[in-house]
């Protein structure tokens, strides 16, 4: 019986169990499937864009379709891959298990959240097939390009894009309310705030940042839709509107959104690194405080996207300073992660490989952010491939490396079977090498001044040199390699669900509560409600016999 007394949810029809389920674990897995399928869609769009960029003479895509693919690739990867996997899947699956609860606080709201998300996804896919094609104004939807159908030739495609994002936002808000209520009210006995696994802290921070930042963008989306459907002109200067208003409202959310995605990715690392190094996390409280500081700062950096936008240039330096300062709390978290590995006893599982891979690649994204954050340098590199390289070095590690780390780590708990480790390692190396070969050369393109979002760069003489062209071709082959490199994962994932080695309760000898129940956990999660005795990262404690000490085991129980 769940805590609402709904016994009928427990064991019943196929529909209730697998489709319209209110069980947080099923919903988490539904988000995972949705995110992985959308990742394939986003990847295929990237493949066509890369083919067009390497061989523009092939005319793989017409300029309209190219712009639509650029727009949809960004939208899908941020909102329909990163969000469902990092928040939808990990948040829903792990929060109740990690705090020792039987489900989310509002299981039915949770189900509604997923199906709202699902309808949003369907609308987005549908938008490819309406007359005029999908949205083609960039994932940032800058007005007035996005405000009047005549400017892009896209009519219903862009309207559906707005509607689908609105549904996505509504869904994540419902999820966020659930995350917060659950973590605040349903923690097991002894699970104090500073005994919470950092994954829960990160999910909570992400949910709060999302809730506080999304409002202005929802308002902006409504205004944009009115501009398009009713002809209002909020963002159209000829009608008294202001295009920069859109940018402020969009980036007020758009930048914190980066951290909404990044923090759960960090959460994955902060669980896997201690378990994989057999050491306590280094600086548990410092990490929490740094995250909160970064969360607050993330609300006052948005105009760093607008240094050359035409806003009052006197605004640039204050935003440049806050932006560069945000490197301090993140540097602390990164240093803490390295110190966690330091003098550990590292077990290089696939999950651990992906976690360390996340750290190594994210570092590149972090340090290159300083170039963009400097208002002076941004004058040159703004809207070039330097920026494209930078944000792929931040978002790809979070959305893919950290997500893969989490999938390899929690797959046994989700499906009751292990993923194959050998093929996991193959997948890791193909992804790690492939990713760097794709995105490292893009810095070089950006430093040559190569603008982004060009359907055919060879229209410019300075982008038609042998060196630039061969770099573009190299990147495309690397991207094809990166895409093919995902095949071992797809096969491994599908095969292991039905035929993987059966997982034990705690295959990684980890401490957090989800490892103290069956794999997969039964409906209701725990046979007996756990009582928490320790902080979650008690690895290699001199007081214990083994090198791990589950949160729900008291030392007396072990010694007797």
């Amino acid at each position, binding site marked *: 019986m769940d805590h609402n007394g709904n016994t009928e949810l427990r064991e019943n029809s196929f529909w209730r169990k697998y489709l319209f389920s209110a069980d947080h674990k099923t919903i988490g897995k539904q988000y995972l499937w949705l995110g992985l399928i959308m990742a394939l869609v986003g990847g295929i769009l990237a493949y066509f864009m890369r083919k067009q960029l390497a061989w523009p003479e092939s005319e793989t895509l*017409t300029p309209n379709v190219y*712009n639509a693919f650029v727009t949809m690739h960004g939208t899908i990867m941020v909102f329909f891959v990163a969000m469902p996997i990092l928040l939808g899947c990990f948040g829903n699956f792990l929060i109740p298990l990690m705090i020792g609860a039987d489900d989310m606080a509002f299981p039915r709201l949770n189900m509604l959240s997923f199906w709202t998300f699902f309808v949003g996804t369907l609308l987005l896919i549908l938008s490819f097939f309406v007359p005029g094609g999908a949205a*083609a*104004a*960039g994932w940032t939807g*800058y007005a007035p*390009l996005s405000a009047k159908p005549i400017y*892009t*030739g896209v009519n219903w495609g862009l309207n559906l894009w707005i509607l689908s994002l609105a549904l996505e936002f509504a869904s994540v808000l419902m999820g966020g309310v659930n995350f917060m209520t659950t973590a605040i009210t349903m923690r097991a006995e002894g699970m104090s705030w500073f005994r919470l696994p950092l994954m829960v802290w990160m999910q909570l921070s992400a949910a709060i940042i999302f809730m506080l930042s999304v409002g202005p963008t929802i308002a902006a989306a409504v205004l944009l839709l009115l501009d398009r459907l009713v002809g209002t002109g909020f963002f159209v200067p000829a009608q008294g*509107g*202001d295009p920069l208003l859109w940018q402020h409202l969009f980036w007020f959310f758009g930048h914190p959104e980066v951290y909404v995605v990044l923090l759960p990715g960090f959460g994955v690392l902060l669980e896997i690194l201690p378990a994989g*190094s*057999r*050491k*306590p996390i*280094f*600086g*548990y*409280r*410092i990490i929490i405080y740094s995250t909160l500081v970064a969360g607050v700062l993330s609300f006052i950096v948005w105009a760093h996207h607008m240094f*050359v*936008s*035409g806003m009052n*240039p*006197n605004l*640039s*330096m204050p935003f440049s*300073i806050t932006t560069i300062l945000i490197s*301090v709390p993140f*540097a*602390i978290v990164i*240093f803490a992660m*390295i*110190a966690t*590995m*330091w*003098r*550990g006893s590292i077990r*290089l599982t696939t999950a651990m490989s992906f976690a360390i891979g996340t*750290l*190594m690649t994210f570092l*590149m994204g972090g*340090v290159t952010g*300083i*170039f963009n954050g400097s*208002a*002076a340098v941004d*004058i*040159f590199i703004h*809207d070039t491939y330097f920026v494209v390289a930078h944000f792929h070095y931040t978002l790809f590690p979070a959305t893919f490396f950290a997500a893969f780390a989490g999938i390899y780590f929690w797959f046994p708990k989700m499906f009751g079977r292990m993923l194959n480790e050998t093929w996991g390692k193959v997948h890791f190396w193909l992804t790690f090498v492939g990713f760097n070969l794709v995105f490292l050369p893009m810095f070089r393109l950006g*430093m*040559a001044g190569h*603008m982004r*979002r060009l359907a*055919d760069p060879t229209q410019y003489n*300075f982008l038609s040199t042998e060196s630039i062209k061969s770099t573009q071709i190299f990147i495309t082959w690397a991207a094809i390699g990166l895409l093919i490199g995902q095949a071992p994962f797809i096969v491994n994932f599908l095969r292991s669900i039905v035929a993987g080695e059966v997982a034990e309760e705690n295959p990684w000898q980890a401490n957090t509560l989800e490892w103290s129940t069956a794999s997969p956990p039964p409906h209701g999660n725990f046979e007996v409600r756990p009582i928490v005795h320790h902080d979650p990262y008690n*690895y*290699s*404690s001199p007081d214990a016999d083994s*090198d791990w000490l589950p949160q729900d085991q008291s030392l007396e129980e072990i010694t007797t």
Partner: protein
Amino acid sequence: MLFDKWFPASISTFSGDIDFVFYLIFYIVGFWFLLTEGLIIYSLIRHRKGKAAFFDGSGKRQSSWILIPAAVVLLLDLAIDYAGGQVYDKVKIETPDHIDLQVLVTAQQYGWFFTYPGEDNVLGTSDDIIFDEDAGAVPLHIPVGKVVQLHLKSADVIHSFFVPELRLKQDIVPGRIIPVWFQVTKKYLRKEPYEIACAELCGFGHHTMRAFLVVQTEEEFTGWLKEQAEEQW
């Protein structure tokens, strides 16, 4: 310098300053990047076997291992802010007192149109020399070594004026006229024109929205402008 092969030529009076900030950041973050990656790789190689050490970063002594480096990061951040602030001011905020030439630049899907002041050197008067759509794609002509101010305006959506060699980029927002300035250093006189790019997605023809920038000596430029004026009037 290290990236001379990759950077476009640096031809304006402030392009070198922007490159300087780039290199400053490059060397600072390069140090941290190599240090942190090095520590990770060292740990990966050395800390594999045996029992793990037990320390959790609590207490002043241990937390200082990460807080002191973070304080150094903070100081370096401020240095980068200071250097960047000086250069941003020079490019975008402080316009030179004396402006030699003003040009009105109109961007529209998908082309660039330039209007020069006539003999009175004032824009918006009857002797303006206007190149509109009927004139075709006339390049932007400017005299070398002179301070040029462009007034950027858009007829439809947001465009962005970008000349990589000038290190100058400015979005053009419909409904506003946004001024920018630059001065091409004398030694960068060359026959072959530079390219003006649109750097902001502006519709399906975005990638075709190019114009040329012709840098001439003062005599060549005044001669050219006079010729154009005679043709138009």
